[in-house]
């Protein structure tokens, strides 16, 4: 359907490629001046913008290329446009798609391509003390050397008027969390504006991928965001398997799903506890942390790592489960669901807690859609988006997945989405343990052919994770684009905060619980 929408507007101006894998993800190149027309066509077809990124394609003898990936229903469509080296500009999509706002600031900061017509070209992730001409994602940039510090100042959004004051928070926060800066403008207790500034934990991950082999890259992917290590490893591995056109054993798919659902439960448990703790209900934090610890210990015992890190590799998995392991997990799940349901009851009946979580930090459904949010945040604001459902990667195409969708968009909705997902994940794990097929764990991966690209989308516990990999002229990694759910959902937090009181910010922030590392890369 998306392809038709492109054809209707662009006709023969859109050139389709066969070098994008899996081929169910349609990819076409359009002339630079028609890039916005394609976005308009997508908008008209109700598609959401999933990601926008740039690649340095000078090793192929060309210039740069900008890619925009759209999603609707079960379809993904990538629109590519070429940008010559001597005129590094491309038309901005920000006026059509709000999330392009940050994607394009990032492209501008790290690749040095100018999005013409973009309303705000302050650097993003790149800090004001970086040298102006430092564009790390360009091939001409030497990533091994430290950069000089230069003078510069970041221009913050300002609010003026009687009684308006500013609260700067971070980068080092009060709790044991990642660094980032938030700047509030408030009148009394009421927040009138929140501006995020991220990039503090930028470690040059996308650039670093380019110096890794396809096999080793998965270790880096597993450390994009430590709490999502399984989902990132799966997404990276699936993208590599797509580009190498390789099928992995059925059993490996099922084991991956087992790891993924365990990661989902563990993180949701921790989140529900932490959200309640930010509403001063410490009881729930300690109860939930107890259950989470139980899961992590079982992980260590059965799979050799508390977070199941490095157990997914391109070609399959490296950890297996035997009959005793199955029994152990089933026993654990029985205990977990009994204890969990008891705690959910307590959450549900506690009116002073309800006072805090209801109607706080509302992200209205219209805005959630406009911002193209994904995952928990989207599903708590009425968007029924889940790749396990719409774009089911194996083994999720073999069984039913029920996804909770709520419409109130407040802290409670985000808690409740997690509660329902834990219940569903427990059901899925039981199903997996019962039906997991026999077979080998992994296969060897062939080297991808030059100038091909691979795409994968995986539903991690935060939401949809996208990897797009491109093979260079010698079949090496030319570009590895990572789109953590946080890249889009941070925008949702910024929009949900105004009109809340300052003391509710930690609560609202925790209910989003986005990754700084996954965003900053």
């Amino acid at each position, binding site marked *: 359907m998306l392809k038709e929408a492109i054809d209707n507007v662009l006709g023969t101006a859109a050139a389709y490629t066969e070098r994008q894998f899996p081929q169910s993800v349609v990819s076409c190149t359009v002339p630079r001046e028609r890039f916005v027309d394609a976005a308009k066509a997508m908008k008209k077809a109700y598609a959401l913008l999933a990601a926008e990124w740039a690649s340095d394609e000078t090793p192929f003898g060309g210039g740069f290329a900008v890619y925009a990936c759209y999603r609707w229903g079960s379809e993904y469509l990538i629109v590519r446009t070429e940008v010559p080296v001597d005129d590094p500009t491309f038309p901005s999509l920000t006026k059509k798609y709000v999330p392009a706002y940050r994607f394009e600031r990032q492209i501008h900061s790290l690749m040095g391509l100018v999005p013409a017509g973009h309303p705000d070209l302050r650097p993003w992730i790149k800090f004001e003390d970086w040298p102006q001409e430092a564009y*790390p994602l360009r091939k001409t940039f030497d*990533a091994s050397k430290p950069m000089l510090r230069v003078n510069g100042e970041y221009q913050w959004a300002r609010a003026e008027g009687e009684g308006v004051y500013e609260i700067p928070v971070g980068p*080092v926060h009060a709790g044991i*969390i990642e660094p980032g800066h938030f700047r509030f403008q408030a009148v009394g207790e009421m927040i009138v504006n929140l501006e995020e500034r991220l990039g503090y934990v*930028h470690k040059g991950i996308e650039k670093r991928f380019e110096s890794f082999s396809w096999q080793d890259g998965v270790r880096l992917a597993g450390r994009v965001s*430590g709490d999502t290590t399984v989902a990132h490893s799966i997404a990276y591995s699936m993208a590599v398997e797509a580009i190498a056109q390789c099928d992995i054993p059925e059993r490996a798919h099922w084991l991956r799903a087992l790891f993924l659902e365990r990661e989902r439960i563990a993180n949701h448990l921790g989140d529900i506890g932490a959200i309640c703790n930010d509403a001063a209900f410490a009881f729930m934090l300690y109860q939930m942390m107890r259950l989470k610890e139980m899961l992590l210990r079982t992980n260590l015992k059965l799979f050799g790592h508390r*977070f199941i890190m490095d157990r997914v590799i391109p070609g399959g998995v490296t950890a297996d489960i035997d009959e005793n392991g199955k029994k152990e997990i089933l026993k654990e799940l029985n205990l977990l669901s009994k204890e969990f349901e008891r*705690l959910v009851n*307590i959450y549900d009946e506690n009116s002073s807690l309800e006072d805090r979580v209801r109607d706080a930090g509302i992200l209205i459904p219209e805005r959630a859609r406009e911002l193209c949010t994904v995952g928990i945040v989207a599903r708590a604001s009425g968007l029924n988006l889940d790749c396990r459902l719409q774009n089911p990667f194996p083994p999720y195409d073999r069984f039913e997945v029920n996804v909770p969708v709520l419409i109130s968009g407040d802290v409670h909705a985000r808690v409740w989405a997690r509660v329902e997902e834990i219940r569903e994940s427990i059901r899925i794990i039981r199903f997996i343990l019962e039906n997991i097929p026999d077979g080998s764990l992994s296969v060897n991966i062939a080297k991808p052919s030059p100038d091909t690209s691979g795409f994968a989308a995986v539903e991690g516990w935060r939401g949809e994770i996208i990897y797009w990999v491109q093979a260079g002229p010698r079949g090496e990694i030319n570009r590895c684009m990572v789109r953590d759910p946080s890249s889009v959902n941070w925008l949702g937090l910024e929009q949900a905060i105004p009109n809340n009181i300052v003391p509710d910010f930690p609560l609202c922030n925790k209910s989003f619980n986005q990754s700084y590392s996954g965003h*900053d890369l």
Partner: protein
Amino acid sequence: MIRILHQIFRTGIVTEPLPAVIEEEIIVIGAKLEEAIKRRFRGSLTIREVDAGSCNGCELEIHAINNPIYNCERFGIHFTASPRFADMLLVTGPVSRNMEIALRRTYNATPPPKLVVAVGDCGCNGGIFGESYASLGGIDKVIPVDVYIPGCPPTPTALLKGILRAVDRNP
């Protein structure tokens, strides 16, 4: 309310001695730690955690030592919101270029003896992120480090042992 109380009493105290394999070691070190904290910090060691660029895996395990199973408060360990009250900085890495200044400022804001513990493979030597335009490598590239706790991420037990080492090793 009755359900909350019921759950609390039903759960009981879940704090347990650390895993059996190293239990003996922990009993020895745990006793030493309590003794050392009592001697050097009047029974209360205050830690400021600083994420200088980690992937947040180490943060999960630092959270875990606060959970009711490990319950680090029983040894007199408390996490604080401000470096100004901290005896120790527990720093995860690698140090990203964008966090270098904030880390230095945090270090400068910490009163003596400012013990610094580098957490995780990345905190020790940059780990998989190494040294690049965006990553400066291990914590000791930026501030002096007293004790290193390797691991990706280090388990809660390894973290506790490392903290004990830092407290014990100084006079």
